């Protein structure tokens, strides 16, 4: 019962947050909306017994990634003016088509979700250690060790990439 309430609440917040990302003029507001959305998702994760992921979501996404976003937004926004009006109608049908096809996409996916026979059933009771750090760690470091190692490579590449980009910029000056 309680979890239902929490779900609807969190879902509403998530949608509002998403809408904020979509509609906010100001990138800072967008970013804040996204943080709200992420927080709501964190709650939903908790409802789905993904405690660790919920925390990671907040910690990494809200705590690091979005801060980085804000950092850049505030840095860039400092000197920018409002965009020129002449750009506004250059892509005349962009809004219309994007909305239309976004909606079609939603309908299609929802159609699939609702059409599947298993989908209306409730999930079974939580079993054992599902969702715990221990279970997660076991899965990550045994069965999915290789992907995990590969993310290390991805991060390394990202680090190198950022260093190179940063230096390039310095060299240009």
């Amino acid at each position: 019962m309680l979890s239902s309430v929490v779900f609807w609440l969190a879902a509403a917040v998530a949608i509002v947050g998403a809408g904020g990302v979509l509609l906010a003029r100001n990138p800072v507001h967008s970013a804040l909306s996204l943080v709200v959305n992420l927080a709501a998702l964190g709650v939903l994760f908790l409802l789905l017994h993904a405690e660790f992921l919920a925390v990671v979501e907040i910690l990494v996404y809200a705590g690091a990634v979005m801060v980085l976003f804000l950092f850049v937004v505030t840095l860039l926004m400092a000197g920018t003016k409002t965009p020129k009006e002449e750009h506004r109608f250059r892509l005349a049908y962009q809004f219309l088509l994007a909305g239309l096809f976004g909606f079609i996409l939603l309908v299609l996916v929802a159609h699939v979700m609702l059409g599947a026979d298993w989908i209306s059933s409730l999930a079974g009771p939580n079993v054992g250690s599902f969702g715990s750090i221990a279970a997660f760690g076991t899965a990550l470091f045994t069965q999915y060790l290789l992907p995990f190692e590969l993310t290390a490579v991805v991060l390394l590449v990202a680090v190198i990439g950022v260093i190179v980009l940063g230096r390039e910029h310095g060299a240009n000056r």
Partner: protein
Amino acid sequence: MATVIIILVKGLVLAILLLSVFGIMTLTERKVLGRFQFRPGPNRVGPGGSLQFVADGLKLLLKEEIIPTGADRFVYLIAPLISLVAALFAFAVIPWGPPLHIFGQTVPMEIGGPNVGILFLFAITSLGVYGLILAGWSSHNKYSLLGGLRSTAQIISYELAMGLSVTGVLIAAGSADLNNIVSAQRNLWFVGPQIVGFVIYVICMVAETNRAPFDLPEAENELVAGYHTEYSGMKWAMFMMAEYINMITVSSLATTLFLGGWHGPWLPPEIWFVIKIALFMFFFIWLRATLPRLRYDRLMAFGWKVLLPVALLNTLATAVWVAIAR
């Protein structure tokens, strides 16, 4: 339903406690700093200046609300709130005593205890940085903005080293649940085996709370007052509250992780807990009175090039040690 009520009660108690401690702390700090500098400190209001904080609070409460032109009103207003709420929330998972048995209920001495407790704490702490950056941005003031950016970079940077310094403890304790960590120190405080982690943690702790000598975001001789330059009145007070509550939070976390939490002989655990926190608080003031401020690039270099590698090595060493010990 009872659990909900218990949680609410606990939260209320804790909030009041923390907020009042904030007041006392401001006074303490001013007095202690005075002592350090061979002057009496506040001594007019109340006996020995003991009611100074009440006067300060009233003054702030009654101050005119000023919102700078060009500021983003909404963000400007919620920024201090975010800071304060995050600070208060973070304390929620700290166990400041053994579970209490009262009214036939077993009441854990923390508000919520997810098995990822310490991570939760870090998550919430990291949200606190929004208050700073948003305050800096929304003030429409270059000093504020620079202060906000500085604090953000600093906090994110030191959070890494801090998290890694704690990892050693987590490995040693074999759990991320703070209660388990505390009980793992029944015999031996982790400050012994994890002395490296402890030192790193303490350094990061100071940086995380933007306290001297890491108080660059509000370096008054460069940035006037950093991110809260444009803030005044209660909103400014909220930032102050957040800062002090954060100090308490990180101190209590240090206590929990390295100094055995509420463990201690003779005295009741809660008292022990408070004593340990008080030591840390004194340490904060001591630092402020003693050390000059770091230069910004040195600060970043120290965090990335010294603390982070050392913390990593510590984690590795701990992991190896634990693996061998098993």
